[in-house]
């Protein structure tokens, strides 16, 4: 088997790095690198600039800036070939270099993740296809964490739901094929949602194509067909549009709130230096002038947010309400740790203390950063406006009549709260209760256009196309009825599911959570509940029946009831197709392997979120993963990270009527 039998994260990180470096090695001598903006971040996740320098990269440019210079003879472009705009940008840059340069450039393009027919014909049209070396960089999953693989497709959400571009589904299918080729076929593919269905179909189709390739003797390489995997249990695909509602809510975990207020991109957040202090300089150089220089207002510092920071991995998935407590506890512990030096009498004890000192200092620094960050978030969450917004959201989620809160929304509009926030509230109402009353929607339209500009007529149109904000009368706002026939395209029926999947849990404790509802302080994301319907059937059943919620008692692995079994009726009320496909292989081979390996290993479950996942949902999935740890390993895969603001950004029109500067 592969060198890393367990961890996909390490495997993908290594593979991506190796692939890129090999390609760079292929370009002899020093070179300049032009990277498209949406690739620069992900590339930074698996390779450092210093390493690129070792491989002869002199300077790095952003493709979108259009300022690649002629300082090096070799110029390498790194861009998405599926994005027509990027392909055109590359072609333009190349033509510009060829015109201006007094140097004869050696040009290379690495297409991510593959060379496309369209990119060929664009380069051909520009007349430069003969002058460039073209290579492919098959970059799909980028590991964000050990348990999170992301395609980091920033636009996947608007591509899928607004432009109706199936590109990211195809991309996902390819990426999942990667996993299958490593571990064998997913024995079972379970999913919910129309796009999820398409993805599953693609996976089946690609398997067939692969089989055809092999048996026709054209492939040569992989000698025999793949078998159902022995180390994976299943793949669960959730389509984002099954549950738009949860993603529209303000996330209430620590990491979620950082994402809401500051924004997290590729595991990094840009935070104002006035909040977290200047970039940590090595202790020795911290002279008197350094802090003065860099504490200027408005400067940003990149804060790394991943599990390499121990403190952060404790904090990230906790509800924000208890972050203060944790910080306090850590501060106290750190203090006693420092104090322990007084008790160190003998030289060996002292040496031990000194050895630990760097670790303490690191922790100290991280504590300072997170204390300040938490304080800053607190300032937001304590504000009058934030409370109003949260109140509207909570009431929507809990299912009370949303029209009561229209006045509050109107006030927020008049007070010039950011448009994204307002639209999130309206979309939330539309998603949760099957559209707005036409009269209300018209009045909101008028007010928003008057408050934020008439260009937002386009915004509303986009939101309607995404089926996020609609009048109640339109055909596609129909909720899935619990009785009678359903129309195609009907929406998730939150009212029914709220009751039948216990989406609202009032008594959840934030300090010591017993249910995933803690991530939204009382509301369990539907998407995660659906996953639980597959993985934690007994628990969900006990929740619904209202009996004593004995969460912690280990329940024997439910081999007998796989898929949606037992929840078919409930799941039917969520939008889109429901399916559970078994991938069979050669029976004899499976049985043979079973006798060899035995059948009691911990298997992996892949949970794939098509169209993006929120940090709260990741936190909730980790919560489940911890409960399931004795039986399963859960790996989260997604097309990218999403939150309500990013959903809105896809729709919001950026142009304005102001004069062109």
């Amino acid at each position, binding site marked *: 088997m592969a060198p890393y039998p367990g961890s996909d994260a390490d495997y993908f990180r290594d593979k991506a790095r190796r692939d890129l470096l090999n390609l760079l090695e292929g370009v002899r001598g020093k070179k300049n690198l032009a990277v498209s903006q949406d690739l620069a971040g992900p590339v930074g996740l698996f390779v450092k600039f210093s390493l690129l320098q070792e491989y002869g990269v002199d300077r790095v440019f952003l493709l979108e800036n259009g300022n690649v210079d002629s300082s090096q003879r070799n110029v390498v472009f790194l861009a998405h*070939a*599926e994005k*027509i705009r990027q392909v055109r940008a590359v072609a333009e840059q190349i033509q510009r270099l060829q015109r201006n340069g007094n140097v004869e450039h050696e040009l290379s393009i690495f297409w991510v993740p593959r060379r*496309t*027919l*369209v990119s060929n*014909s664009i380069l051909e049209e520009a007349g430069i296809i003969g002058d460039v070396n073209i290579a492919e960089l098959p970059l799909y999953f980028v590991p964000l964490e050990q348990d999170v693989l992301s395609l980091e497709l920033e636009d996947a959400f608007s591509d899928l739901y607004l*432009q*109706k*571009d*199936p*590109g990211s*589904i*195809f991309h996902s*299918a390819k990426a999942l094929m990667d996993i299958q080729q490593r571990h064998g076929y997913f024995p079972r593919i379970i999913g919910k949602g129309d796009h999820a269905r*398409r993805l599953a*179909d*693609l996976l089946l*189709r690609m398997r*067939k*194509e692969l*089989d*055809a*390739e092999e*048996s*026709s*003797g*054209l492939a040569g390489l992989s000698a025999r067909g793949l078998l159902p995997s022995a180390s994976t249990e299943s793949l669960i695909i959730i389509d984002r549009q099954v549950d738009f509602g949860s993603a529209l809510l303000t996330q209430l975990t620590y990491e979620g709130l950082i994402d809401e207020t500051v924004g997290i991109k590729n595991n990094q957040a840009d935070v104002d230096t006035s909040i977290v202090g200047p970039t940590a300089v090595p202790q020795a150089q911290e002279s008197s002038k350094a802090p003065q220089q860099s504490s200027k207002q408005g400067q940003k510092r990149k804060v790394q947010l991943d599990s390499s920071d121990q403190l952060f991995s404790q904090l990230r998935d906790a509800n924000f309400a208890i972050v203060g407590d944790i910080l306090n506890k850590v501060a106290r512990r750190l203090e006693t740790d420092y104090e322990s030096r007084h008790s160190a009498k003998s030289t060996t004890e002292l040496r031990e203390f000194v050895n630990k000192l760097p670790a303490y200092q690191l922790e100290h620094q991280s504590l300072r950063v997170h204390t300040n960050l938490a304080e800053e978030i607190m300032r937001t969450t304590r504000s009058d406006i934030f409370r109003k917004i949260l109140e509207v959201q909570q009431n929507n989620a809990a299912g009370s009549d949303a029209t009561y809160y229209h006045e509050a929304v*109107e*006030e927020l*509009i*008049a*007070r*010039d709260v950011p448009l994204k926030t307002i639209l999130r509230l309206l979309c939330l109402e539309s998603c949760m209760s099957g559209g707005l009353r*036409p009269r209300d929607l*018209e009045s909101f*339209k*008028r*007010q928003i*256009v*008057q*408050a*934020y*500009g*008439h*260009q937002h*007529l*386009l915004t509303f*149109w986009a939101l309607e196309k995404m089926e996020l904000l609609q*009048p109640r009368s339109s055909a596609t706002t129909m909720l899935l009825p619990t009785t009678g026939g359903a129309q195609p395209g009907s929406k998730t029926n939150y009212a029914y599911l709220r009751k039948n999947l216990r989406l609202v849990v009032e008594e959840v404790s934030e300090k010591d959570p017993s249910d995933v509802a803690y991530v939204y302080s009382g509301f369990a994301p539907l998407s995660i509940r659906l996953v639980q319907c597959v993985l934690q059937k007994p628990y969900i059943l006990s929740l619904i029946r209202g009996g004593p919620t004995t969460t912690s008692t280990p329940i024997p692995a439910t081999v007998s009831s796989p898929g949606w079994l037992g929840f078919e009726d409930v799941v039917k009320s969520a939008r889109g197709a429901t399916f559970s496909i078994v991938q069979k292989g050669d029976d004899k081979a499976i049985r043979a392997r079973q006798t060899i390996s035995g059948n009691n290993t911990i298997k992996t479950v892949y949970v794939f979120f098509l169209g993006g996942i929120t940090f709260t949902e990741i936190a909730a999935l980790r919560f489940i993963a911890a409960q399931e740890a004795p039986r399963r390993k859960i790996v989260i895969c997604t097309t990218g990270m999403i939150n309500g603001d990013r959903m809105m950004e896809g729709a919001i*029109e950026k*142009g*304005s*009527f*102001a*004069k*062109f500067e």
Partner: protein
Amino acid sequence: LEGKPGISFELIAQAAYDEGRAHLATQLLNHEPRAGKQVPLLLEMEEDEIALDKAIESGDADLVNYVLLHLKTKLPLASFFRTINTRPVASALVETTARGQDTELLKDLFYQDDRPIDGSNVLLSEALEATELPRKTEKLQLASRLLSDSKDPTVVLQQKLLSEASQLLKIQEVLDKDLADRSEFLGLSLNDTVYRLIRSGYGKRAQKMQSEFRMPEKTFWWLRLRALVAKRDWG
């Protein structure tokens, strides 16, 4: 031949086509499971619609785009539209590609498909991009004219708001001339315009705008409150 995945139908079909037996070749190609190999050949054999369908089936946006690019250069526009508008994936991709590149194509497409709001939105986008005020208003008027003969309430509202937009621009131009000498108001939203008027002490004009655009009383009071606080006018 059924049930034998090992055979490369692509090669056989190519051979059949070379022999001039196009029909047989197409039939054979139906058995080829690898879309990547199937589609270019179908195009070569001028089986355009089948090629398009197969490309869509494969889920590979690149293949679909490739076929579309090919068809667009080959077919007259009208029949090109006819080919794509029964296939939602194809028309969505054409729309995406055309946005920001080929707005004329979009307008034609929406006109032929009878999608007036889409069509007027293209014009609205163009109005936003235009640099001169007269051009902007002209585009806005075109956009609202497209919607003028419909009775659908959403369309009516859209049209009303569009004409409101050009009205607002006109007033802002006057404000710029009267009060500011430079473009200070042009392009602001209605609320921002009123806010700025109050902050600069033109309460009368602000009130006039409120009634002209039927701004809700509450909104107006909030704007006044905020503007007066910003001005530190506690009187």
